[in-house]
């Protein structure tokens, strides 16, 4: 059911005919994001090029009471940018893709939301600077999407997540007004920290149309190592031992055996497919510190039973290892038609037990699972390999997810570390937050978007 001609006419006037999609062949490819088994065709897609045009589109949607779904490159993993129905308008921001300013003196970068994350990192690097957040999809994800989902990445342990690098935002609100939040000052306590409300708000509170990012000096040295273990527990103990030595590496990533096999099948970089786990370790900073930390980490891994520890000899080799880890999720899709990915996070000390619990649960319910993730920050990605057409198996997958979530919450963890709630994790949010804080979320949504137009039905109903 297409949108009424009057609405389409108004949208066309706002963005131009070339930037409005309405044919089924154009819309079908906007029915999904990177999340499995979620698909809904939108009523129309627009590609505004300016903040003003975004505001005009929101005003049109408001007048006609159309739900608005904001989208970047559509790589989200919780269904955050999946359309809500044939009456909704998708605002796709990929054409607002200019890096507006790099300021090496104030260590900031100002960009439009459609800039690809990798381009932000490259632009910073061109000035000898560093933008640390590196989500798995950074080669195609947009910075606006990263802000909306508060994306993490492989460097979370030492450098934190997207939130830690957002200094300011320009946002189009649900009433089509344009607000600017935050600034280039390191210190700023003028009023509520409003920008923080929008980081990770998953498109439900406003549309980010510009970001001001914090940059760091680029670390002068880096060393990447790969430790191979027969047992997952030994890898986890290595991580605990490293932290106990007061070393904070920038990366401590692990892959279990199933994941190693799939990644090797894709990347062919010589990972051992008969191991229990591999641990990707990276330290960066001053060359002397890096050398010392790397030696200590390698020694600790050996002491905890690593079969081998190898050091990447070149920058290219280090990049290949990191890229292999980033592609772990997609590589797991080689095994079965449908991959259901989770994003639970537990306190670091509970991690080894949680990995074992996931494996037991999968075995008990006769399911295939590959687990990988950020061992340094307790963020796990158990990925169930299944087939959405097999109703019986899908029911067991959901059973397993419920059990894993329950255990996560018992351990004081969270249902999502970096992917967002969206549609995929919605059933468990209330359980985690409890009535009072769940209610608080809804009050905020009602205050900022009383007509419930912005990404309705995401995070909560």
């Amino acid at each position: 059911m297409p949108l009424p001609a009057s609405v389409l006419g108004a949208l066309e006037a706002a963005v131009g005919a070339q930037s409005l999609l309405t044919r089924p062949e154009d819309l079908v490819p906007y029915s999904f994001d990177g999340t499995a088994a979620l698909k809904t065709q939108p009523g129309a897609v627009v590609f505004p090029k300016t903040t003003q045009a975004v505001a005009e589109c929101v005003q049109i949607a408001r007048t006609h009471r159309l739900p608005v779904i904001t989208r970047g490159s559509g790589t989200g993993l919780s269904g955050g940018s999946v359309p809500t129905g044939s009456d909704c308008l998708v605002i796709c921001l990929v054409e607002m893709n200019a890096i507006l300013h790099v300021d090496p003196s104030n260590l900031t970068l100002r960009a439009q939301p459609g800039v690809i994350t990798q381009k932000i990192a490259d632009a910073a690097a061109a000035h000898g600077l560093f933008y640390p957040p590196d989500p798995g999809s950074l080669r195609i994800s947009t910075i606006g999407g990263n802000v909306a989902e508060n994306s993490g990445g492989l460097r979370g342990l030492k450098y934190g997540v997207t939130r830690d690098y957002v200094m300011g935002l320009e946002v189009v609100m649900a009433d089509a007004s344009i607000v600017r939040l935050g600034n280039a000052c390191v210190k700023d306590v003028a009023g509520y920290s409003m920008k923080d409300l929008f980081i990770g708000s998953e498109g439900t509170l406003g549309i980010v149309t510009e970001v001001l990012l914090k940059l760091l000096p680029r670390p002068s040295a880096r060393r990447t190592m790969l430790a191979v273990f027969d047992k997952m527990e030994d890898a986890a103990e290595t991580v605990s031992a490293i932290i106990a030595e007061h070393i904070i590496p920038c990366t401590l990533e692990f892959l279990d055996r199933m994941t190693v096999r799939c990644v090797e099948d894709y990347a062919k970089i010589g990972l051992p497919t008969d191991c229990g786990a591999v641990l990707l370790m990276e330290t960066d900073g001053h060359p002397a510190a890096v050398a010392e930390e790397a030696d200590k980490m390698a020694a600790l891994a050996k002491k905890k039973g690593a079969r081998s520890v190898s050091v990447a000899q070149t920058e290219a080799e280090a990049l290949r290892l990191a890229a292999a880890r980033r592609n772990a999720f997609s590589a797991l899709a080689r095994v079965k038609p449908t991959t259901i990915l989770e994003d639970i996070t537990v306190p670091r000390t509970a991690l080894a037990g949680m990995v074992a619990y996931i494996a037991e649960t999968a075995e008990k319910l006769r399911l295939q699972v590959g687990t990988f993730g950020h061992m340094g920050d307790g963020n796990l990605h158990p990925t169930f390999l299944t087939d959405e057409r097999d109703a019986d198996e899908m029911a067991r997958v959901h059973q397993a997810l419920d059990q894993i979530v329950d255990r996560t919450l018992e351990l004081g963890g969270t249902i999502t570390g970096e992917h967002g709630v969206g549609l995929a994790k919605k059933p468990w949010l209330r359980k985690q937050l409890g009535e009072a804080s769940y209610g608080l979320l809804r009050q905020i949504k009602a205050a900022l978007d009383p007509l419930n137009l912005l990404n309705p039905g995401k995070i909560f109903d």
Partner: protein
Amino acid sequence: MASPLHQIDYAVLQQCMHCGMCLPTCPTYDATRRERHSPRGRIALMRSVADGELVPGPEFAKEMSYCLGCLACQTACPAGVQYDALLETARAEVESSGVAQNAQRDFWRTLTLRGLFMNPSLLRLAGRLLRLFQRSGLQALFRSSGLTRLLPADLRRLEPQTPTVAPSFSDALIAPVENPPQGAARHKVALLTGCVQDLVFSAINRDTADVLLANGNTVVTPPQQGCCGSLHSHNGEPQLAAALARRMIDQIPPADFDAIITNAGGCGSHLRHYGRLLADDPRYAERAHLWDSKVRDIHEWLLESGFRTPKAAPADTPFTVTYHDSCHLAHGQKVTRQPRELLEKIPGVRLVELPEASWCCGSAGIYNITQPEQSQQLLDRKINHILKTGAQVVLQSNPGCHLQIARGLQKTNPSIQVLQPVTLLAQAYRRESPSSQSL
């Protein structure tokens, strides 16, 4: 009869988990930033057709035609989606549903796919006529007289792109069986001469044979070889492609050879999939499978079978070269390391890496004919990168890329030569003995 997309193994469509890792490698998505022009977008359209949610219409046909088929997405895809098989099925869907039909398109498809490229002697006859036309001065007269204005617009645009036909075809240059000079043949291989390669670049086939001989291979080159069927398969005609594959297997029985050598990236990519194409033909399935296991790209084979470094340089003074990956060699056959490795071994040749070396040049089979605008943009991008390297020679290994890049350089910097690595190698081997002449 159920349509091709309804018959396809659904798991192949499901394999795409739409993570988006393909997007940054797709030239048409890069140019437009519209999901329908991306690999995962096209797969979503195919799945909608397979699910019965979308009826394939002219827009579907247009989209499948807009895809270059460069397969960069297939290299990028961590999930192992067989995009080549999906695209071929979708194009077959377009043909079988008839949505793209119109009189002019049908005429050209029938003439080329069903006529010329199904029948080697007809294709060679056309080649001879074209050669006569070009060599007699008629072409020059035709062009200078302005008579080209009488051609329909489409043809007028294409006419200057007509490649110059070689003075002789491969079978005049290569004997059916040739043995290495020193005796002691280590391998026996069949050499595929191709269609365009045979008509336009027969000298490159001679070079390929020479390089094989210099490396201890007995070279068997059956005269009058047919088209391998890649054009048909890539353009929605699987039945014709299967007929050509059977003919090929009959003419060159795979059991007789250690390897079947191809020097054209586009053909090679298709030649490795006869098993898939003939899986349902009990008479051929097994031989097709054996065939696939014997097909080797020339560079791949040289390194695999024991390569002898030339003792001479291809020219008196050293020169700089750069290498363009033809899509179907890099992404279709995953051969990227070997041509570079060979080039680095040739004395007097300095290889500089080409930025975006594996980004499509816009030739893409018949894409420069079907989608001239997009093709030209990709060519401009490629030429810019080539000029920046400062190389005197661009190397590649596919006749389509060869013609396309040569056409691009003709307009910008005609002093840069376009060659294939085997030509440099052959030249180097020929200069090893003092009596030999340079090319």
